[in-house]
């Protein structure tokens, strides 16, 4: 019988994985609550409560409290360090909330060279910013890119692509 396991990229134990490079390091951020909110966002926020500030591309969020990462005109990811209580599913006034804790893996890059690493992966103009944090990153569509400090970046990537993105970072020439 053919061993199809050999087809897949080997990956580390994410809870312990860390990349240490000259001027930057990377790790996986575990345990964040992630909720995908779609539709009439103003009505969704009115019901979900004032859950922190909204961040777009390269903007800085406060990671100690809940915040919203804007994806599109009618879509955002509500991120929280603590579990959030909400009613998932479709709501009659035009919005939906979906548990996305395991849909996105969250990578954190930190250090003085972080910006150079990010600049190699995306063509987006970081200084110009953008209302949407979604960008093409290392060839992956719709990676969410923002910061939680001046030299600390968070990336939300579809979980299935995490091994690829990790390898991209791991094998990136210094």
């Amino acid at each position: 019988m053919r061993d199809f396991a050999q087809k897949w990229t080997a990956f580390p134990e994410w809870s312990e994985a860390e990349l240490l490079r000259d001027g930057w390091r990377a790790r996986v951020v575990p345990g964040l609550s992630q909720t995908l909110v779609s539709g009439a966002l103003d009505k969704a926020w009115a019901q979900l409560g004032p859950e922190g500030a909204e961040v777009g591309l390269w903007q800085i969020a406060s990671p100690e409290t809940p915040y919203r990462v804007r994806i599109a005109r009618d879509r955002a990811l509500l991120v929280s360090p603590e579990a959030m209580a909400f009613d998932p599913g479709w709501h009659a006034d035009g919005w939906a909330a979906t548990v996305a804790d395991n849909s996105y893996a969250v990578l954190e890059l930190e250090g003085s060279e972080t910006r150079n690493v990010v600049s190699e992966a995306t063509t987006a103009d970081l200084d110009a910013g953008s209302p949407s944090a979604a960008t093409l990153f290392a060839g992956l569509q719709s990676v969410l890119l923002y910061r939680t400090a001046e030299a600390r970046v968070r990336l939300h990537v579809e979980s299935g692509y995490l091994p690829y993105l990790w390898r991209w970072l791991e094998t990136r020439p210094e």
Partner: protein
Amino acid sequence: MQRFPCPFCGLRDETEFHYGGEAGNDRPEPAAEVSDQGWAEYLHIETNPKGRSREIWVHMTCGEFFLLERDTVTHEVFASESLRRAAP
């Protein structure tokens, strides 16, 4: 390398966009009465103007469909407009 203006996200590199077709090339209806020639013209025949053109594009990272007016010779972009309708 070009940069296109997504009506929501602003200027982004062309690699984030996908061409959707010429604006105004509406799907023929009713489908059951459309001839083979009609389908072929709808699917495969484009006017492909040299110069100012109106095209449908989608910004792949945010999913916004929009109308882009640009010059296919000079690559100058004149306007981009969201194709979303207001919620009823």
